[in-house]
């Protein structure tokens, strides 16, 4: 019997030909003075049309900051200090999200890029009915619509994520955690956006519910063809679920590669360590390595490669120079990049 099947749809990879979101050199700080925490440092990342891009890394590595930063949703004292976020709609000119005027930005939000936040309980306003919160989105972006039509659409959305439409007028606290998370997913798809950012959408849920929801996301993506930026620190989940995976450490992307490739052969010692921190449920019981030490303090980053104090394979250049993300010279034929002196960039140093 098979109660589950792999979550990834293989064909999607071929659809993903061109970039829908191109992040270039994004830097995000918390604070503006010398005490500022530099949470995201010079991150470049491309999200292709229709793909699931996984973003992993331990707590505090800047995953959420990156996700909110590109939508300019960081709460104060967050400041975007450099970079561009180019959004290319399927039909039309690419725009830099960071330079949009407030009105245009509002229109862009949710209609083009929606976000499923880390905790659903906190994402839904406890004092408004689910219907109100769903309708709010629709009304904000298609003001002409009649209320009845909006309600119908809201019902449709709930059905789509597997919730009985009669729960439309429930308050968030009357729904279970899984239902709330689904409501959020339904809401994220309300305007059929091109990009859905999901920040640990399932961490608070148990595995059974997690799988149900992920399956739902996969199905919906097949139907609507949006791209997903999927954030979690559960690498085994990502490997199964995403097309490509980027690993963050200390505010930087340290490695980026197709999921299977990364799983089989992680180049960066940190990625490698991460992958070997998870006990596997199946297969032979293998010895787990783990990563020694503790995550870096963003306010007092070690010099050179920020991972070097914990790195079992560090050598001289690591403590001095920051490795640049580029396709490794020893793996030029694979579509991957890494920032590690063990695998100095070949062609990408340009």
């Amino acid at each position, binding site marked *: 019997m098979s109660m589950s099947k792999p979550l990834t749809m293989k064909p999607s990879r071929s659809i993903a030909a061109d970039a829908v979101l191109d992040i270039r050199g994004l830097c995000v700080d918390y604070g503006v003075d010398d005490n500022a925490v530099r949470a995201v440092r010079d991150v470049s990342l491309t999200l292709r049309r229709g793909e699931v891009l996984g973003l992993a890394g331990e707590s505090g590595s800047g995953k959420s900051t990156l996700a*909110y930063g590109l*939508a300019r*949703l960081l*709460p*104060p004292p967050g400041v975007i200090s450099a970079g561009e976020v180019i959004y290319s709609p399927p039909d039309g000119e690419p725009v830099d999200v960071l330079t949009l005027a407030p009105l245009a*930005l*509002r*229109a*862009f*939000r*949710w*209609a083009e890029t*929606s*976000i499923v*936040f*880390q*905790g659903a309980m*906190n*994402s*839904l*306003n*406890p*004092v*408004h*009915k689910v219907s109100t919160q769903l309708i*709010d*989105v629709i009304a*904000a*972006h298609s003001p002409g619509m009649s209320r009845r039509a909006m309600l119908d659409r809201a019902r449709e959305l709930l059905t789509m994520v597997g919730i009985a439409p009669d729960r439309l007028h*429930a*308050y968030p*606290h*009357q729904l279970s955690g899984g239902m709330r998370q689904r409501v959020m997913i339904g*809401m994220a798809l309300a305007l059929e956006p091109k990009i859905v950012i999901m920040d640990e959408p399932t961490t608070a849920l148990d595995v059974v519910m997690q799988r149900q929801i992920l399956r739902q996301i996969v199905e919906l993506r097949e139907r609507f063809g949006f791209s997903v930026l999927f954030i979690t620190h559960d690498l085994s989940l990502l490997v199964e679920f995403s097309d490509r995976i980027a690993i963050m450490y200390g505010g930087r992307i340290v490695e980026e590669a197709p999921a299977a490739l990364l799983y089989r052969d992680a180049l960066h010692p940190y990625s490698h360590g991460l992958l070997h921190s998870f006990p596997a449920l199946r297969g032979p019981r293998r010895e787990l390595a783990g990563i020694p030490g503790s995550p870096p303090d963003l306010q007092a980053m070690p010099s050179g490669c920020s991972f070097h104090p914990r790195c079992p394979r560090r050598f001289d250049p690591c403590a001095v120079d920051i490795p640049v993300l580029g396709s490794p010279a020893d793996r030029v034929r694979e579509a991957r990049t890494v920032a590690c002196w063990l695998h100095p960039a070949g062609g990408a140093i340009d």
Partner: protein
Amino acid sequence: MRFFLRRFAFYVFTAWAAITINFFIPRLIPGDPVSALVAGMRGQITSDQIQSLTVLFGLDKHESVWMQYVDYLEQLSHGDLGISFGNFPLPVTSVLASALPWTLLLIGVTTIISFAIGTLLGIVVGWRRGSWLDGLLPVTTFLSSIPYFWLGLIAVSVVTYAGYFLPISGGYDPGLVPSWNLEFIGNAIEHGLLPAITIVVASVGGWLLSMRNMMVTVTAEDYVTVAHAKGLSERRVVMGYAARNALLPSVSGFGMALGLVVGGTFLVEYVFSYPGIGLQMLQAIARHDYPLIQGIFLVVTLAVLAANFLADIAYLALDPRTRKEG
């Protein structure tokens, strides 16, 4: 529902506690109303009269405190609050009836106004944290630290100095007959203006600060960020998401804070000789008019309880989490 039952039990308990405190406190007073009356009449009353006054006030009977308590409860159940010593032989209820409307109006209107203004300003200041509006905060702190009555004194002297452009005392011109005609109502409003402004100015700061703090807290909540992410208009985000939720603690604090507001208002009445409960109460205390003190205290406590009840209902309406689940 459970919320309601609990609250209801609380109301009953508080009412009972207030009634009981109310009964016992005056009984511990060392003096008695006759000597207080003598005090009021300094020199114009002879020693012999004291005896007849004692008889007059029915203070010559001696009953156990417990019996008195039972009598008191029994009387209360008939709505009988006794006879006011200081306004002998009027029943306390009629004294209350003449004073209560003034206080209710004054406190009611000013509290609502200052709550509304304070909350609105608090929303704006909390939302626009970091803008020049933050400059309001020290001013507000200072204003809310000023005792109500002193602000009242200053208001009186300013008005006096500026040539009485507003009436500085009383509830209406002496000689006017209270009635529902325009002249009287206009006059009453004119008289209420200065006390009302005083109370509003002195109390608006508290609401502002608490609302602002709540706004600051709520603004950092995820659902507000989500509301932004949804591309809602700023107005909708502020009012529908941030302020709506930030209001909840204010509303539940509203009823509770009334107890404090009432105290301040009493002194304002005193300063402005406003013909309300507060003024009556201070006079009743000077005259040792227990029944009136008791009556006033009871009525005020019940009124605060009633306001709490309204605040509870408002809270219930605003926060679905307190409602019974389906």
